[in-house]
């Protein structure tokens, strides 16, 4: 029962903080670039506007057109429910096992890629192809870096890992953990389409990945797609933040614990987002065929982290 409460808190937290996170990131970026920006509430207003508008349908479209945006949104919501954002109390029958979490994430990825192909336009296919290549190459890093940090804990359940790390702060600074966290940051950047892998605010034809897939969508379809993608960022960024700095995450479902968890979670998430946005200002997008080098680099970090685990313990 309390676990269901925690899931509800996670969902509410993710839904509430996501527009704020995106707003903060955009504002930080705008200020650093010398613009005033749309304000922290702008993403929220954007989504509400999009959701109220009618979507379009071309002849020959399939149910994928309307199902994919909702599926992406559902995948992101389940992801936020399973990742220990606020509390490490997990559902007993769905404990947020690493591989389950990754596969839920991949379901969203696949929904998006199929949507890109659905319209049958060149841009959609191009975005979908690039998106899947990046997703495929990220996969080894994801599993190996979590393997590295799950090894010492002896469990692949994310909430158990986060709890163990907060109980043993010394383990946060050993090379195993640091290398794995760096590798995971690259993963988050690649999976959520941030610079230097993809530019979330570009509409420049040849560099688009995420934008190319959703070009043909409009109205509430686009609203769900945008919000779903943002939620993914929240969940993944929150996960990395809680792995790197596991303090403040509630071990149970007590009121105080949850309040502290929500407060520290929000602070960590917004700081991480602001940091990411600030770094992005100084980065240019990589050429698509340089991206595999970045991902190979992150794989090497993850592998080093695993080897370090062998040397350290």
């Amino acid at each position, binding site marked *: 029962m309390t676990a269901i409460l925690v899931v509800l808190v996670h969902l509410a937290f993710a839904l509430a903080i996501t527009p704020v996170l995106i707003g903060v990131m955009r504002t930080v970026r705008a200020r650093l670039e010398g613009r005033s920006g749309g304000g922290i509430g702008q993403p929220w207003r954007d989504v509400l506007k999009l*959701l*109220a508008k009618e*979507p*379009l*349908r*071309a*002849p020959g479209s*399939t149910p*994928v057109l309307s199902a994919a945006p*909702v599926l992406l949104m559902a995948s992101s*919501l*389940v992801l936020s*429910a399973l990742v220990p954002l606020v509390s490490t109390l997990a*559902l007993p*029958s*769905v*404990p947020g*096992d690493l*591989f*389950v979490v990754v*596969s*839920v994430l*991949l379901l969203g*990825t696949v929904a998006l890629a*199929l949507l*890109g*192909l*659905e*319209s*049958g*336009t*060149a*841009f959609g*296919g*191009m975005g*979908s*192809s690039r998106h899947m*290549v990046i997703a*495929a*190459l*990220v*996969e*080894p890093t*994801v*599993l190996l870096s979590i*393997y590295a940090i*799950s090894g010492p804990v*002896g*469990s*692949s359940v994310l909430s158990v890992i986060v709890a163990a790390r907060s109980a043993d702060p010394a383990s946060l600074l050993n090379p195993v953990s640091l290398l794995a966290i760096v590798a995971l940051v690259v993963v988050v950047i690649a999976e959520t389409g941030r610079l230097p892998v993809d530019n979330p605010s570009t509409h420049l034809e040849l560099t688009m990945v995420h934008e190319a897939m959703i*070009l*043909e969508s*409009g109205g*509430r379809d686009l609203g769900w797609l945008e919000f779903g993608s943002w939620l993914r960022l929240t969940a993944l960024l929150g996960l990395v933040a809680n792995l790197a700095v596991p303090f403040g995450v509630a071990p149970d479902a007590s009121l105080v614990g949850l309040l502290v968890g929500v407060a520290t979670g929000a602070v960590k998430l917004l700081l991480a987002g602001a940091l990411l946005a600030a770094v992005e200002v100084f980065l240019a997008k990589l050429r698509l*065929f340089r991206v595999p080098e970045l991902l190979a680099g992150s794989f090497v970090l993850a*592998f080093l982290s*695993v*080897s370090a*685990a062998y040397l350290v*313990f």
Partner: protein
Amino acid sequence: MNLVDAGLFAQLCLAAAAILLAVFAPVGHRNLAAGIGVAALGVVGAATGVTALLGVQGAGLRVPLALPGFDAIDPLTLAPDRLGGFFLAIVGVVVAVAAVFGIGYAHGPVASRTGWTAFAAFALGMQLVPSAGDALTFLLAWELMAGGSTVLLLADHAAREPVRRATLWYAVMTHLSFLLLVAGFGVVIAASGGTTWSRIAATSINEPLASGAFLLLIAGFATKAGLVPVHIWLPRAHPEAPSHVSAAMSAAMVKMGVYGVLLVVLRLLPMGPRWWAIVLVVVGAASALYGILQAAVQSDLKRLLAYSTTENIGLIVTAIGVGLLLRDSGQTGAGDVAMLAALLLAVSHAAFKTVLFLGAGAVLHATGERDLDLLGGLAARMPWTASAFGVGALSAAALPVTSGFVAEWALLQALVHANSQVDRLIAVVLPITMGVVALTIGLGLLTFVKAFGIGFLARPRTPAAADAHEVGPTMRAALVFGAVVVVGLGLVPGPLAEALATAVNAGGVGTVGATGLALGGFGVLLHPLALTLLTGAVLVPLVAVNFAIARRAPRRDVDLTWGCGGERTSPRMEYNATSYSEPLVRVFRGSLRASRSVDVVRADGAPLLVEEMAFTQETVDVIEDRLYLPAARGVRRFGDFARKLQNGSIHRYIGFSFAALVLVLLWVAR
């Protein structure tokens, strides 16, 4: 006579009945009659297999043998153990589904008397291989299986030239496999003095002999299983075979290679040295990675599926290798889970590959095309096929809630929970295996998004695809049944896993909450039903909100949503399978080679004006190119040389005789 024995006997009778039906049924009803006969054979096989898997041991069917000059020969025996029962069950279900599909699908030479007779013989051979209790029966059944499948593969040879070449490759490789097996079994039989599995298992064979037998047998089984570098018959034979036969070959026959590997390492030659496990891990991981890389860049749908079979079998063999390695280093818990993962991968692959090949067959039936570059838009025209193929593709990509996800989850759990700090070898092997499995999963995702998205979504790329129609009721029934099995195994993995664990002596595997899978050894559990409920709980309000908004702002139909800002785009401007995998060809240009050609037709008198342009790309199987073609060239060169000796001139032959005579005289007079 108990249930298993009765089932075995019934299979022999049903195979004979199916052949009689195939031969004597009137032409108009032959498909139906023979199809039902073979399906019944499959169903009885499956039931027998399940009974044996649950631990019922029969006395076995025996045929005594007597040969002049030999005192005692073990009788031919049919007596499946739990492991054999498991594989018999897989084969039975696949055969039944493929036969039902064949009722609507088979036409032309495949629907002839020969075609259905060969199918019945092929099915019987596959069902007898895992039931065999001795090497001789095993090899006889193996040849029945090989012979039946070769005839089926050759069925359409008169109409299409590639069929003949594919059959040649297949016949050569399958006989290579047989010869290796005869040699391998010869070594163990000579060392143990008997042909039955129990006699061989009871003898401890000395080291150089045991390792020799291991290598021979594994090479033979790997050839059947389609592992790298002896996989090359798969991408040739699977596309050319009739689709229900490809399904049976890929989902069931190839599994016999896996059964063989398990038979060797678990039953006949247990307690082998450590490097045996490493051999399996290396071969398996190389196959998995190479197979999925090749699959990702194929545009022929059935060729793509064939390469993906190499990948899946590679994963299974990797899991077996990891299991052996971990058991050898004393980590029984993780080793057991890896072994269980191998069986789960096998059953899951059988389920989804049947659906995928039958789906490809339905597409071929409806459009006459299997090249993804010429398909598209089929989801709107063939909703049943598209849904079933989609479920199969989800499973092949190892996504929840399908059988593929459960199986790969178990494999990854075994890798994560193995203590890699035991020694240096394991500390290196496990992370690399993890990386390979992860990359395989990632590329598998890309491959099947491509297969489904390019083939079934988008707009039709050719008139054939635009005129596609949904297939008939038997084919639809087979597809839907397969898809239901895929989802069922994914939703309710617990009881199945518990039964499978007994087949490989794995402990600590249990059911949780009636359907979920619990690995008691490390206290982890997978509860797909609960995950589905959680997703449903999220999805219901989401869909409700979506509907509420949709009532106020309904979807509007337009000719073109945005369409790159152009007029209605021509289908030729769509992204196709070749362009979809282009980034991958670039990224892996070391191991994937594509030969491209651009043909430009220029205007008369104005060389700068291009009238027509054609681009073709073919991906090259590097192993075939570097290993087999040079070998084939060497054989041919030897043949050319031999032909020079034999030019038909009588003078030359007299000269040879004379030279031989002189040589003999010189040797005698020495």
